[in-house]
């Protein structure tokens, strides 16, 4: 078996690469470089747009929450005004009713 394995080692020695393989490879590499640069800028632009959309969403949500808070505050103030007016009317009536009773 050792003889056969030795034959295999000799038979399976590395073959030289085809002439010009490196040149063709380097040409392909150069050709891919601009494409890779374009892809990089496309990815960067997409990332910026995505970040802007997300930031806009966060800002919009904050503004919306503030607007809703302000609307709720106005509603509470309106309710308080209505309640105050009702209480004042009630007071006036009670006072009038008291005076009428004394007379």
């Amino acid at each position, binding site marked *: *078996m*050792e*003889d*056969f*394995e030795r*034959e*295999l*080692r*000799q*038979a*399976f*020695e*590395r*073959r*030289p*690469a*085809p002439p010009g*393989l*490196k040149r*063709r*490879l*380097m040409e*392909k*590499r150069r050709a*891919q470089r601009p494409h890779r640069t374009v892809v990089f800028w496309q990815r960067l632009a997409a990332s910026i747009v995505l970040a802007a959309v997300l930031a806009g969403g966060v800002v919009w949500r904050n503004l919306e929450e503030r607007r809703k808070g302000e609307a709720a505050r106005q509603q509470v103030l309106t309710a308080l005004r209505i309640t105050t007016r009702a209480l004042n009317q009630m007071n006036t009536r009670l006072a009038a009713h008291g005076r009428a009773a004394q007379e």
Partner: protein
Amino acid sequence: MAHDWQPDFEQLVDEHQSMVFSLAWRMTGDRGLAEEIAQDVFLELDRNLGKIETAAHACFWLRRVAMNRSADALRRRRVRGMDLWVEMEDVHGVPAEDRGSPLSARLEQLLATLPEPQRAALVLRYQEDLTPEEIAATLEAPLATVKSHLQRGLKLLRAKAQNHLKEYVRGA
């Protein structure tokens, strides 16, 4: 730990193009396809150059990717129903200086008739002189499986050689 080794793409191509091409050729049996695979492997190395830490890592990485890309190419070929090695001489015309001895050529043809996992193990063992442990790491396969492929592949190849290469093989 910071490593001082700086990968130089052109130097890596110079050093390993023969290895990558030979692995791809012996796995696919197609010289033109092997050159395409070799180019793809090196272009992938270029994209992953930042991850390569040492010269040994580069060699290991190239072997593994070359074997994976060759397996992918064989899978695509099987889908298209093309035969291994059949086209080799006709379509791609092997230059005389690359043909090697008649025995080498016949052994390579017999190698091509072995099942793919056995062929992969034998190519890494006898072309690259790797140990079974290194072959297992390269192919990402269990050690016991690799040892089994080596034993069976060697036995099968020897049996084929006894039938076909009586005039060449000593001790067969």
